[in-house]
């Protein structure tokens, strides 16, 4: 459990050392397009080499590791919004293709051992969850992100939309995943393949934690950044 601490990651730290402190951060590499084989490189060197903003990478690593971490307004100010949007988009794709699809496959293997009815019900439940997530991400990709890009490009407010609309509708997509966890742990009996079920549960717990951080990033980095941008434009108009 991470307790309050004054230690935070900085871009001067070695990349290999960072991974050693929290191996879960490895899950961020594909989303940033970062490669391994980091040698003795510092985080800054490794990021620059691969076209990633070290500030953004370090901030996100801090969010993933320290429960009480909150970026300061000054840190937010310096962020590259386009890099952030790119990271979020790649994360969306990563969640669907690299996390949710494999979970769906694992679940299929397990429900294959259930009665036909239970098999159908469980698979249908998961596909509802998947659709919900896809819908949530698609809205961000098709409505929210283009709006932000438009704001940056033409420095103009759009009357029909603002980030508060998104903020107020930023829906919660974690209920069904958490439900599935309880169904597997407490309620699905007698399928006798503990190995696969355990493996699946690890994947679900890990995805759940990761998605929590993702929502947190959107709520404490993305939304405040855009609010700031809107305010600046509004004052200049």
């Amino acid at each position, binding site marked *: *459990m*991470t*307790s*309050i601490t004054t230690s935070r990651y900085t871009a001067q730290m070695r990349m290999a050392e960072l991974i050693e402190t929290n191996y879960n951060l490895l899950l961020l590499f594909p989303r940033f397009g970062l490669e391994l084989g980091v040698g003795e490189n510092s985080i800054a060197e490794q990021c620059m080499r691969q076209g990633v903003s070290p500030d953004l990478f370090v901030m996100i690593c801090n969010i993933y590791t320290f*429960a*009480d971490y*909150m970026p300061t307004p000054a840190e937010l100010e310096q962020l590259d919004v386009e890099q952030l949007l790119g990271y979020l988009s790649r994360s969306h794709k990563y969640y669907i293709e690299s996390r949710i699809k494999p979970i769906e496959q694992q679940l299929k293997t397990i429900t294959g051992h259930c009665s036909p*009815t*239970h098999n*159908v*019900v*469980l698979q249908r*439940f998961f596909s*509802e969850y998947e659709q919900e997530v896809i819908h949530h991400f698609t809205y961000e990709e098709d409505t929210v992100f283009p709006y932000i890009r438009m704001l940056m490009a033409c420095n103009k407010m759009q009357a029909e939309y603002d980030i508060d609309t998104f903020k107020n509708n930023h829906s919660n997509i974690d*209920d*069904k995943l*958490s*439900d*599935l*966890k*309880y*169904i597997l*742990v*407490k*309620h*699905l009996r007698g399928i006798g393949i503990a190995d696969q079920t355990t493996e699946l549960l690890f994947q679900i717990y890990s995805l759940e*934690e990761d998605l*929590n951080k993702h*929502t*947190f990033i959107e*709520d*404490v980095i993305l939304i405040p950044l855009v609010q700031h941008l809107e305010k600046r434009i509004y004052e200049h108009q």
Partner: protein
Amino acid sequence: MSTNKRIVIIEPYAMIAQGLRLMIDEIKGYEVSAIIADGHYIERIVPLHPDIIIINPSLIDIKKKGELEDISQRVPNAIMAALVYQYVDPEVLRYFKTTIEISDSREKIAVKLRQMIETNDQPAESSELSDREKEILVAVAKGLTNKSIAEQYHLSIHTVITHRKNLTRKTGIKSVSGLTVYAILNNLIDIKDVE
């Protein structure tokens, strides 16, 4: 794994939060897992799985109704204590199991924490669903609204909502689809009834 009760402190001022933490550290059986200093704390509490949340109620936006309900839904097992040193609306205080005052001694805090845990453990009711709860579950799975469930069973909407909260607490399942899966797995309903 330690069996200490995990406490999260949500308090904007570092001096107060750290002071409280130091006092709690000296009380056996408890540990402070995190101090959260700002708003936006709900998402951060959930993964910490605290047993006790000590929160400064002035951080809770009273106008934003449902924030406290939201915490108790997202972290159903946590007991809530209010950390009080300013005026707090008594309406808000009703939601808390106890209040910790800034003038409390370490001993007094220890007693309050212990009492909270004990009174919370008392109603160690079974997690089996009652017959009424099973009926409500089936109705929910069939897609009935709280209003029509209330009418059908001659209950107040408030009672229906209480039953639904208990269903979620006992099964761990929040979504209607998830409750439907539960009902089918337990043969409370036939798959044809929900198609």
